């Protein structure tokens, strides 16, 4: 271990409990963290990257057995540390930032109190000084109105603000090591860019060693000094960021880099002479909450004067940050919520004016694929039933519907034996395929895909995107594709509508939008996409 190394992980081997899909969570992993440097640990879900982080924090679950290896820090092997040793180390020497700042903060405690707890845990400062220090930290991480934020509860801040608060907390005791576990994955692109900037800035100023876990090569190219690529718990490649990104040696690294969608939209044939599948005219939707004798009501305009159409066989993308109204528009088009004003036409049918039996019948024409493949399938029903339920509800003979469900599973690349299994027996990508089969079961003309590939690993994401593209061509589907990921949008959409605060600010063919964005917000979004230089390298 050289003088310039903060932490040295050597031959770390962590055993999974019996009956797991592989014997080791982490198998013979070695890497170093150096002061003032960011090490990115990259891999897909289940690659063992979070396990490394938890081992470094001493937060491994009891079921994981530390079988071999060493984590050397400050002259001691952390793997042999007792509880008291860890208490002194955590927070003070090693701090951690988690992926989802909403769940990583205690919902019942004020932000200031949660930061002050850092000092309390190590018996530092007086309660009064802790409060002042919390305020000062919030100022340092650039939280707006720190005096107000310090008294706020987590739910009163936005996602980016919460993550800033988390970072302020992690930095409170000026630790030598910061472990960041996917700290920007849950954030919008523009917020992500700001948080990455913040981490890099603080790390340089404080000369911290950072272990940055991510699955996103765009982020890697923006922030990493060194990169470790993990696959199934093993290091397949490590080196300087530039080397790994430019000259990947291992086939797995190459495959991962190749799976990152390019910012270059592929050429697409114009569809101008097709008939309209969906026409959206002047949609308005305002959510009103509150309103009592002593409180003003709060209005959120989720859709204002939204106009667009989707031609037959066309994919229209809706992009924008969280809260821009994308999902509300999707739900309005699906008529899962009622608009205040405006019309949605499916072909010649006015979808917003029908009700009762007629509405139920027409609903089969437009179907949805959801974001979270874990939450969108009923865990207590077999896959065959999940797919066949819709057609049976619409009067199809159950035997026929089940036969069709088996065919659909084949169509989305799954075995018909999946019919008799439950959703938890499948991986995320497989579940998303089941979700697609379910949407197709009613033989819809239009598919609404709400962040349908956002929860998937890049390699799986590429497969699912290909599947959607293929199905669309074969079945002549039209698609409304909602995403926050401009790379994905570039690959799959014919036209893209950019949404901001409930309104569409720009709607153009994909290639034009990427090459000549007009609206400032579109330009801002495009500029914030991480890893723009490296992706052209990789592609």
């Amino acid at each position, binding site marked *: 271990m050289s003088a310039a190394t903060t932490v040295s992980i050597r031959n770390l081997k962590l055993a999974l409990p019996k009956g797991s899909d592989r014997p080791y969570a982490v198998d013979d992993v070695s890497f170093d963290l150096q002061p003032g440097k960011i090490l990115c640990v990259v891999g897909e879900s289940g690659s063992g990257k979070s396990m490394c982080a938890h081992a470094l924090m001493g937060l491994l679950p009891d079921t994981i057995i530390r079988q071999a290896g060493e984590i050397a820090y400050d002259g001691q092997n952390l793997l042999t540390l007792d509880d008291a040793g860890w208490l002194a180390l955590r927070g003070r020497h090693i701090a951690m930032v988690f992926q989802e700042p909403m769940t990583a903060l205690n919902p*019942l405690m004020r932000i200031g109190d949660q930061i002050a*707890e850092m000092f309390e*845990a190590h018996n530092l400062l007086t309660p009064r000084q802790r409060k002042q220090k919390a305020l000062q930290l919030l100022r340092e991480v650039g939280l707006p109105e720190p005096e107000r934020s310090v008294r706020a509860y987590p739910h009163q801040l936005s996602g980016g603000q919460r993550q800033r608060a988390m970072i302020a907390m992690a930095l409170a005791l000026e630790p030598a090591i910061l472990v960041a576990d996917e700290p920007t994955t849950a954030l919008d692109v523009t917020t992500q860019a700001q948080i990455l900037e913040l981490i890099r800035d603080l790390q340089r100023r404080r000369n911290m060693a950072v272990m940055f876990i991510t699955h996103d090569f765009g982020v890697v190219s923006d922030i990493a000094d060194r990169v470790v690529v993990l696959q199934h718990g093993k290091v397949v490649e490590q080196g300087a960021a530039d080397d790994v990104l430019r000259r990947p040696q291992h086939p797995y690294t190459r495959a991962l880099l190749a799976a990152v969608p390019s910012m270059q939209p592929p050429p697409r044939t114009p569809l101008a002479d097709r008939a309209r599948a969906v026409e959206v005219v002047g949609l308005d939707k305002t959510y009103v909450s509150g309103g009592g004798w002593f409180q003003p009501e709060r209005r959120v305009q989720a859709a204002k004067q939204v106009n667009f159409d989707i031609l037959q066989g066309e994919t229209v993308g809706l992009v924008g940050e969280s809260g821009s109204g994308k999902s509300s528009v999707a739900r309005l088009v699906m008529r899962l919520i009622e608009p205040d004003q405006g019309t949605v036409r499916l072909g010649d049918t006015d979808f917003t004016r029908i009700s009762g039996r007629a509405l139920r019948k027409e609903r089969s024409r437009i179907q949805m694929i959801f974001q979270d493949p874990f939450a969108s399938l009923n865990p207590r029903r077999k896959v065959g039933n999940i797919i066949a339920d819709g057609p049976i509800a619409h009067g199809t003979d159950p035997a026929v519907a089940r036969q069709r469900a088996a065919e659909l599973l084949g169509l989305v690349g799954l075995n018909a034996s999946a019919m008799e299994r439950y959703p938890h027996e499948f991986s995320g990508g497989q579940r998303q395929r089941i979700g697609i089969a379910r949407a197709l079961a009613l033989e819809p003309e239009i598919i609404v895909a709400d962040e349908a590939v956002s929860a998937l690993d890049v390699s799986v994401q590429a497969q699912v995107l290909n599947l959607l593209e293929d199905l669309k061509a074969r079945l002549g589907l039209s698609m409304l594709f909602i995403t926050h990921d401009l790379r994905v949008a570039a690959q799959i959409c014919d036209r893209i509508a950019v949404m901001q605060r409930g309104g569409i600010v720009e709607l153009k063919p994909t290639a034009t939008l990427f090459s000549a964005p007009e609206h400032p917000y579109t330009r801002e979004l495009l500029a914030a996409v991480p890893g723009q230089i490296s992706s052209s390298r990789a592609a």
Partner: protein
Amino acid sequence: MLSFIAKRLAKAVVVLLAIVVFNFMLIRMAPGDPAMVMAGEAGASDQIFVTQLREKFGLDQPLPVQLYRYVKGIATLDLGFSFRQQMPVAKLIAERLPATLLLTGTAFVISLLLGVLFGTLAARFAGTWADTAITILALIFYATPLFWVALMAILLFSVSMDWLPSFGYETVGANYTGFAHVLDVGAHLILPATTMGLFFMATYARMTRASMLEVKRHDFVKTARAKGLRDAVIQRRHVLRNALLPVVTLAGLQAGTLVGGAVLTETVFAWPGIGRLMYEALLQRDYNLLLGVFVVCSAMVLAFNLITDLIYRAVDPRIEFAS
């Protein structure tokens, strides 16, 4: 917040009114004529006497008029007259209510404290013998009929060991005053309150245990550990506080029903409370008294629901009064 309370109170009045009307109709629909019963008990069931009784108590009036009079009475806290006990219903209930509140209140506190304590311990040592022992113990008290546990407690602590009195609210004829009286009532309270408390404890213990195990999985508990906080602090400040939210809901639901739910305990221990009053009124077809007890019990449920909502809003900042 004031507007919230005002709105909730207005709603509560409407609900209470609906309950009163429904109960009134239900009792009038039941077979048996109150005037006949009264006349029969007076030992003179001739037609003229029955008619006189009907006129006297307004039973000859059409049903809507009777209902109107009854509701009007309730508005002025007049719950009618118990012919069996020859006393106004409101006065009867007022006499018995403190005893019931003392019993159920104590039982409630016992069940909540023990339940949360045992639930916390079970969650802390989840999967070990301590967890199993606590769960089984709680289940035994929950599964065993309340009256049986009560009888066994009397046999053990009153009959064979003679530690505690077995029935009543105070020692008859002792006429204690001051602190001696408090001690006397306290001694009488121990057995019924503990029996009832142990029964309800099981639900709180199970709820607390499940809720704590659920909360423990959240990321913010990991954040707390990453800070270097001691485990005891994490359990108390981060886990328990969040885990208590569903327990508050359950406690609120249960607190409301405790007033009417003490029938068995009060009967076994001869505790002079509302439960026994209701039981007697039922046996004696004392309709006015029965209705009166119903109204008071309903009002209690509504009051505790409102209190629960207020507490819930105080402990969970995510809930705002406006929504």
